[in-house]
């Protein structure tokens, strides 16, 4: 079975004369694996995710999602894909149930009312289903957005900071849910996060981005050992600031 994500030479330039936002990156995400996409602000994570989702056309390169060429046949892959980002909202004047009903309809989900009830139960949204999404707290909105991201039981989930603005208890439960979902559904998850604890807990593999390039890759434990550090946070700082010796070793 082909990888969930296969990217080759992916580049995006917004201006012909400027530096590329994403510079000839190549990577794969195997089926059933949770992979982290890390990097500082402006490293190219959101641009990369946008290209994977098909809402941004790359300047060059190849993207294959679940075996489909995203540049030519993205509508074959999109039904099995979903995403969540704190930078994109659900319509605030619709209730949570209405939003899930609309997106379930867009994805052609069978037996939608039962699926909505199931998600509400799993994400502790039952009491919030008939409340306007705009009236929810930021943590509740994040859970509602996650329910939307799971409504079609995606084979591939792209998550941009899925636990941003959640309190530690809720964030922990969301991580547990994502872990369980990936295991149960054999789904793949590409996770962009600034929470290094979350990355260490969830990700089997991590892609480190800097200035539009993938500068390192490996399992969290392996990266920590390679950089001679104790935590992923220290590894992140080494890479972001260009200090430490892991990066040069990786390049060699």
């Amino acid at each position: 079975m082909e990888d969930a994500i296969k990217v080759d030479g992916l580049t995006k330039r917004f201006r012909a004369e400027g530096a590329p936002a994403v510079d000839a990156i190549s990577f794969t995400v195997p089926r059933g694996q949770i992979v982290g996409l890390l990097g500082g602000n402006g490293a190219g994570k959101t641009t990369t995710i946008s290209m994977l989702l098909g809402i941004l056309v790359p300047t060059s390169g190849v993207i294959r999602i679940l075996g489909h060429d995203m540049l030519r046949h993205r509508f074959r892959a999109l039904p099995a894909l979903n995403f969540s980002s704190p930078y994109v909202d659900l319509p605030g004047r619709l209730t949570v149930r209405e939003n899930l009903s609309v997106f379930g309809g867009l994805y052609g989900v069978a037996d939608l009312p039962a699926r909505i009830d199931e998600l509400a139960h799993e994400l502790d949204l039952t009491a919030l289903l008939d409340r306007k999404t705009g009236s929810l707290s930021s943590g509740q909105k994040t859970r509602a957005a996650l329910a939307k991201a799971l409504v079609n039981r995606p084979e591939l989930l792209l998550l941009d900071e899925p636990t941003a603005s959640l309190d530690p208890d809720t964030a922990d439960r969301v991580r547990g849910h994502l872990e369980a979902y990936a295991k149960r559904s054999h789904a793949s998850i590409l996770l962009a996060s600034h929470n290094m604890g979350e990355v260490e807990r969830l990700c089997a593999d991590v892609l480190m981005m800097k200035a539009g390039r993938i500068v390192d890759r490996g399992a969290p434990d392996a990266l920590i050992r390679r950089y001679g550090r104790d935590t992923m946070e220290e590894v992140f700082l080494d890479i972001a600031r260009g200090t430490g010796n892991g990066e040069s070793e990786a390049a060699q």
Partner: protein
Amino acid sequence: MSGSLGRIGAMLKRHLYLFRGSWTRVFDLMYWPMLQMLLWGFMTVYLNQHSSWFANAAGVLIGSVLLWDVLVRSQFGFTFSLLEEMWSRNLANLFVSPLRPFEFGVSLMVMGVVRSLIGIVPAALLAIPMFHYSVFEMGLPLVAFWVLLIGFGWAAGLIIASLLFRFGLAAESYAWALVFVLQPVSGVWYPVDTLPVWLRPLAWALPSTHVFEGMRSVVYRDEFRWDLLASAAALDAVYIGLGFAAFLYAFSRARVRGQLLQSSE
């Protein structure tokens, strides 16, 4: 095909939920058509008392204002539904789903019809007891005029949506103002002959002009002009085709420039 209809249905549901949750939006749709109808209704009463020519064609101004509002509400309904997605930062959610741009466009067209019906029908009904004028007495020609003006409203909505995809919410003011450029040259209140000679070719290039000339023909001479109907339908087809081409092109350029995400963020 059924998947496509299901996605269009989901988009319609999204906007109908919005109405259900906010009755002020529904009243907002009715407010301007009602106000316009009252204004021109009283104007008609006054003119009827002072002009035998107007007395012979009572209600033509009310008919004009109601039909003009069909065009305006169709365009507003189309554009407003797109703006709702931009205001709520929802475009990225929609376009990472299997929703095709074409299906999105069709759902906006249907919402143009729904919003124009909600806006115009109450005003048209109120005109009957208020001014003893029923636009519905035009019969089948009214249906033809309504369809043609809805179609031209779609075309205008598609062009304005292209501007919104290109320039984002910076182009929002065009959504409310652009259609009124058409009013002076569409012969809404006066025949095309009133316009200077050099402006008439431009007026005849608009389907709305053919509709309003056709309406006056029905009201003043009780004659339905099939030639005007045919030319308006042909022009509608051209403008809708051009509008859809511009809409799809602007959408594809927005994907290249990354504006679908920017308009959401």
